[in-house]
């Protein structure tokens, strides 16, 4: 049994960092795509699209209740009855490509570019 931290373990640390960077880069907010709209997905279905510059609220009643708020060009899940409410704690998003998910409710709030198209593909 090797129970002491050894040099080779830095390879493990390096591998994890490299993997993290590889996944991080494609999701960087690109300046080309101005944030334009909020898409609300539930269970893999696009429920609705909002312009980001118009304030409003959207309520989903599925397994749990999610209240999605759009205000001052930002979006957030402001209320949720799901256990843990990680989605509410995720806070506000405003950059293209960012999203908030509520796994228990299978909800995703996603910010897309002005044309509403995906401007990159991962994988």
């Amino acid at each position, binding site marked *: 049994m090797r129970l002491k931290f*050894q040099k080779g*373990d830095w390879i493990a*640390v390096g591998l994890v960092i490299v993997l993290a960077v590889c996944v991080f880069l494609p*999701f960087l907010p690109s300046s080309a795509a101005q944030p334009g709209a909020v898409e609300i997905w539930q269970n893999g279905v696009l429920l609705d699209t909002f312009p980001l510059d118009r304030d409003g609220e959207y309520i989903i009643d599925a397994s749990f209740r999610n209240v999605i708020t759009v205000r001052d060009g930002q979006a957030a899940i402001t209320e949720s009855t799901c256990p843990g409410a*990680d989605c509410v704690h995720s806070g506000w998003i405003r950059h293209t*490509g960012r999203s908030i*998910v509520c796994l228990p409710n299978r909800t995703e709030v996603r910010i897309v570019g002005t044309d509403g198209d995906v401007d990159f593909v991962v994988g």
Partner: protein
Amino acid sequence: MWVRTAMWTLLWGEIMKKTTQLALCAILIALALALSYTERMIPLQLLIPLPGIKLGLANIVTLIALYLQGPKTAFTVLVLRCIMGSFFGGGLTGLAFSLTGGLLSMTVMVLTKRLPCFSVYGVSILGAAFHNVGQIAAAMALMQTVYVASYLPYLLMVALLTGFATGCAGAGILRVLSAVPAFTFPKANR
């Protein structure tokens, strides 16, 4: 007459071996369940608001099982912990997530343990990281979106810390337990 005695001795040894393994397996599962239940009360989400974030305390048990008893026992402990853990809360969705994460992490740990360049720490860090990879993969499949992967880099950075922490705990426990014959029985101390 001596044939019968010899057979009994052999049989008794076999029974003891099975009993010890069964008891050890039960202890490890109970320990893993208790740890995964306890860690739900630690509000790590309030500190770092990411879905699926946790300390991974139960991974200490998987690690110990893997090092003391080998992949078979570790696999049994992991699967039973996930199934029984879903009774305590989490439900079927939780089970799907913990199983995909756990099995991928387990596979990676079994493979990396064989490589001489990694110690318990490296194995634990990679196990924690791939637990997150598995969970994100499950989330991507469940929600039909690649955007969930944008959480992965943050989860991986946290996994470095939690993996190191569970590695510390695992190494400490293994140092003590590997000296107790009952825990490494019937496997030779490796």
